[in-house]
């Protein structure tokens, strides 16, 4: 079905609805088979070798379908039933669906202002692992890092900020500025409370040589 999506929005929506309905369970819950179903969808939509531009477009439209399915599921499921799905997506970061997983986590963090995520601390370690991986597409990754810092609970946000700034030791440059600006834009209070504090520690504090 996915390979037939191409750029046909109506067909894509219809396929998406099949998966959304398949994953649903009574009481705003998830069906016991929802995770294998979602994984199958994600696996089949992952990037294939980009032999031609046509294949890349096809992959993009498949991934749009996966994002659409996830959004629907997030809206229709109560937040305490979503934890297995979020953990499943965090697991996807380890496999060949990593780039898609970054995209999907971004969706999880932003749907309903991030209120569907109950335990933000689970994001911390996988995100820090991603920061040291050299072959990650930087824009979506830093957008995700800044989003998690902006939306998460104060403790996770502060801890993650500290760790992120420690990472800047090895890889500086524009990334720090992008991170600071993104957090400042989406959560000025967190920016003023700990991002700026870390920034000041990072930059003008310290001893002379």
């Amino acid at each position, binding site marked *: 079905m996915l390979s037939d999506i191409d750029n046909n929005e109506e067909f894509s929506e219809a396929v998406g609805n099949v998966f959304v309905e398949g994953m649903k369970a009574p009481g705003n819950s998830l069906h016991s088979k929802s995770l294998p179903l979602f994984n199958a969808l994600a696996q089949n939509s992952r990037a294939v070798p980009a032999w031609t531009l046509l294949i890349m477009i096809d992959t993009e439209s498949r991934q749009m379908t996966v994002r659409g399915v996830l959004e629907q599921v997030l809206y229709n499921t109560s937040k305490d039933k979503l934890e297995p799905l979020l953990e499943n997506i965090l697991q996807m970061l380890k496999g060949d669906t990593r780039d898609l997983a970054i995209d999907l986590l971004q969706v999880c963090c932003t749907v309903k202002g991030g209120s569907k995520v109950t335990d933000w601390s689970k994001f911390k370690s996988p995100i820090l692992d991603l920061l040291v991986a050299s072959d990650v597409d930087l824009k979506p990754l830093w957008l995700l890092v800044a989003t998690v810092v902006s939306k998460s609970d104060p403790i996770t946000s502060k801890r993650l900020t500290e760790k992120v700034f420690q990472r800047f030791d090895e890889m500086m440059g524009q990334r720090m500025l992008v991170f*600071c600006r993104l957090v400042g834009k989406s959560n*000025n209070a967190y*920016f003023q409370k700990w991002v700026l*504090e870390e*920034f*000041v520690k990072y*930059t003008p*504090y*310290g001893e002379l040589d």
Partner: protein
Amino acid sequence: MINGRRINSLDEGRFDEIALAIVSLQQASLLTPSSKLDGIPRLNGYLVRRESKFIKVLESRLVEKNFRNIRELWLSIQLVKVLGLRFDNLAKVLDHFFMESLATKSDFRPSIIGTLLSLVSDDKNSVAYLDSLRKLDSSELESCLSDITFLEGLEMVLLKLSKYGASRMLLTLELPLKLETSRHLSHRLSCRIFHVRHTPFERHRSAYCCLLLI
């Protein structure tokens, strides 16, 4: 010490990156220039150690007037403003840059002059700076007046003067301008200045208007 380790690896290239980050954050309204008069550098209230390498590099660049180009000068002056940094001889150094900026043609000039105007410390210097602005010919002054940093600096320096002084200075500056620019400037600055001070401003405003008519 982790912070020490971080800053100890700061080289010139890294200084520029951090400096640009600070100025960019200020331009995004995430940082506001320090308003404290104690001269201790701060970023939105977070103290910055004077002995840190970052501040030392900034101070030495300013004192030694060690700039590869006018952009670096612009960046350093912006940092002085954002951090609220003060040190011995800073006023003298800024005076020097002000005079140099008046004589230098560059896209950065209006912004540098405006920032330096906003850093003027006392009335006496304010008058001297405003007098010096008359060295600019009308077209140069017109181009400066289209720069928001210049206008903000001008506004701040005029606010430091007495109302009569401010009126007189504003009038002197406006005389060589085109009528339209002059009106724009009067509208923007005279209202702001005379309203902001919360004292019987009407009389001064009338005096200013009379002066304009003359």
